[in-house]
């Protein structure tokens, strides 16, 4: 021990910082169609390599290829494109509404639209998502009214959450969308509990847990994997790896494990990586996982490889920590453009129809916004009733709250 070198520790650094040239050469992208589609009851041992590859369906020419292709009909595909376009238009309008002071905060999905919209279509009515703040596509694709989402964002007199929750933290039991928690990862383990409860009640509904790359560091993530693995809970464990947790690049949470999907291997959970910007691949993999859960084969971990093209939130400025042109260099492209090109190749879409659909989508978003603004925005018009501050805290209002309400004169 006499000549031991001083000990060191390692702080991971992203490939480039602002001012540098974006470089994704380290992201290995397998060819579309090249990854096998195992049977849903495959032994986890036998499919370990799926945690280190990327399942892709749409190739560079826009063709759907390989064993994961074919999970959606023409109608479902055009509806999916429209859902992604709606989400993007919705984001653009709400982003602007925040800048105009109509709400204090907003979080957009730019570049990640395929993940939540395609996933929703692999679930059935009654299944429950425990989403993060970047899965509003689950609501859009399930037909939840945009005006209700906006009422929540504007915290107005029609706010379904009655002025109690942060903008974009939607909640709809009917649409299988559990109340979003502002504290990260808390719901990952709760989703496993929900799934186990469904099994205990001999129900047929499954659960889907959602988490970002950064918050996989939370202990809730690891607890969720332990429980899902031990009890073979009917759940899909979704990790959306959009490369950035605010300014923290994904390598800080991932450490030396290679991929986030690989975290599942030690737990014996079948773990797959999928191209998160490929609507068809996301749907096919989600459907595979849902079938496993529904057939009592247990949990599946899915890592969606995508890129957060926009800022983390309206309070964030990504140019402080990553090159401005980094999103242009992202090798998996834009999910809307990729599906659009595929539909054109399929002969069921055209540039003209796309342009027309863009206009229609924007019109419907603007119409919803007008209606919502008629019910008030953060600083003007209708507001939640002051009674709402005391309601809903307990099933029955206890006497001391009743007194406080009387004192407040409401």
């Amino acid at each position, binding site marked *: 021990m006499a000549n031991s070198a001083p000990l060191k*520790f390692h*702080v991971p650094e992203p490939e480039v*910082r602002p001012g540098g040239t974006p470089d994704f050469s380290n992201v290995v992208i397998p060819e579309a169609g090249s990854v096998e589609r195992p049977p849903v009851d495959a032994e986890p041992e036998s499919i370990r390599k799926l945690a280190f590859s990327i399942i892709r369906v749409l190739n560079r020419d826009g063709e759907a290829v390989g064993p994961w292709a074919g999970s959606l009909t023409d109608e479902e595909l055009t509806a999916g494109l429209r859902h992604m376009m709606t989400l993007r238009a919705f984001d653009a309008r709400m982003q*602007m509404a925040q*800048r*105009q*002071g*109509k*709400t*204090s*905060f907003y979080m957009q999905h730019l570049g990640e639209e395929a993940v939540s919209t395609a996933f929703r279509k692999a679930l059935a009515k009654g299944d429950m998502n425990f989403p993060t703040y970047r899965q509003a596509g689950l609501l859009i694709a399930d037909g939840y009214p945009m005006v209700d989402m906006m009422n929540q964002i504007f*915290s107005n007199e029609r706010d379904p*959450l*009655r*002025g*109690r*929750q*942060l*903008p974009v*933290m939607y909640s709809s039991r009917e649409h299988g969308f559990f109340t979003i*928690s*502002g*504290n*990260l*990862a808390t719901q990952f383990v709760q989703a496993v509990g929900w799934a186990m409860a469904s099994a205990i009640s001999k129900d047929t509904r499954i659960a889907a847990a959602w988490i970002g790359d*950064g*918050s996989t*560091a*939370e*202990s*809730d993530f690891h607890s969720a994997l332990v429980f899902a693995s031990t009890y073979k809970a009917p759940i899909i464990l979704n990790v959306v790896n959009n490369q950035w*947790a*605010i*300014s*923290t690049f994904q390598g*800080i*949470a991932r*450490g030396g494990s290679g991929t986030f999907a690989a975290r599942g291997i030690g737990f014996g959970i079948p773990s797959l990586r999928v191209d998160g910007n490929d609507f068809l691949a996301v749907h096919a993999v989600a459907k595979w996982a849902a079938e496993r859960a529904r057939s009592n084969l247990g949990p599946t971990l899915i890592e969606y490889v995508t890129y957060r093209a926009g800022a983390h939130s*309206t*309070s*964030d*400025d990504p*140019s*402080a*920590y990553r090159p401005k042109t980094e999103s242009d260099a992202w090798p998996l492209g834009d999910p809307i453009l990729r599906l659009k090109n595929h539909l054109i190749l399929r002969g069921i879409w055209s540039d003209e129809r796309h342009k027309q659909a863009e206009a229609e989508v924007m019109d419907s978003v603007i119409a919803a916004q007008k209606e919502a603004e008629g019910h008030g*925005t*953060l*600083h*003007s018009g209708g*507001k*939640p009733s*002051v009674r*709402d*501050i*005391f309601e809903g*805290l307990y099933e029955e209002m206890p006497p*001391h*709250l009743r007194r*406080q309400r009387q004192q*407040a004169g409401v």
Partner: protein
Amino acid sequence: MSIEILMPALSPTMEEGNLSKWLKNEGDTIKSGDVIAEIETDKATMEVEAVDEGVLAKILIAAGTEGVKVNTPIAILAVEGEDVDQAAKGVGEADETPKAIAVAAEPAPDKQAAVPAAPKTEAAADPDIPAGTEMVSTTVREALRDAMAEEMRRDQDVFVMGEEVAEYQGAYKITQGLLQEFGTERVIDTPITEHGFAGVGVGAAMAGLKPIVEFMTFNFAMQAIDQIINSAAKTLYMSGGQMGAPIVFRGPNGAAARVAAQHSQCYAAWYSHIPGLKVVMPYSAADAKGLLKAAIRDPNPVIFLENEILYGHSFDVPKMDDFVLPIGKARIHKPGKDVTLVSFGIGMTYCTKAEAELRGMGIDAEVIDLRTIRPLDLDTIIASVKKTNRLVVVEEGYPQSSVGDFIANQVSQRAFDHLDAPVLTIAGKDVPMPYAANLEKLALPNVAEIIEATKAVTYR
């Protein structure tokens, strides 16, 4: 009719920013959604988007102007059919001009001008600051950064860790410049796990280093509370005095604005319950600096509760080489004889406003800033109560088992005969913080409540 374009707020707590760049010139046609300018705060750079359409008639605030208050008119927009020159002249007729951007602004900082001026003896009267010391106006944010930087220069064992503290310079920019000065091994970005990095910090402290653990907010630190209470606070005791944890857990605490139930809780009373911890909650920049330095040097675990709204407030800070304040000593913010108002942290903003209004009514209130919640300086409170015979305690936390409850209990035991009225406590409403602005306001204490309580205990 011309429209004024106002300086927007990027976030609910922003009060001012720099107008760094105009992207449109006078005379340019503007469409709704066009980016017309870039503004910059200490947090971020953002684009200003036009709401209304028209022609940019006049730029009122030049590019490069610093410290532009939110809601200040920055340009005039001539709307369709309007003469641009005429619109440009319309400056100054602001009362008739509709406001173009309604923004989420905080209430303007202290409107002290509207009330009788406070005696300007406060800072000089502070016994902890030598008379004649030069004062420098400093924000709480800068004071906290300066405290950490000074202690890190002084002691190689001090380091800071937390989410976003390095590359991003802190989610609230409290660690601004520290990475550049001290490098990646002393300013450490952590994975997102408060439970994890609080535990790592406690371990590092037990190994003899002096970590400063920044929580992005104490609201995220609930999952770290086991590390703080069961390990940091108790290990020295349990190990028979062998292994302590000289560590500071710091970050914003309590409500900011528009951040709702899970991000708006005050933990002063929670941590004050725990033997083994010290709990500091400063109001002014001088106290923030002097007490954070003391906390870093303290051999015990210290919970250092800051406030997001106070970060941008400026106060006089003494220009001294090594300004350290004692933990556990309250500060008489303003002496008085008719009633004692006790508060701490952001609660002081309500009390100072109430004090000024009460002065206008002929009530001379003594205002005490606790600064430290544990150990609590009861002697200063009791000495004051013996003089004024009346006590009102103000805090933003929940009413049950509050800091005020404990003070009321102690005062009734130790100075009962000196009380001419029951001790009144003012706290937040007993509900999770709602999001909506009107409900949020209702959930927090306000100046009127303090005045009403003061009138009640002085029988006015």
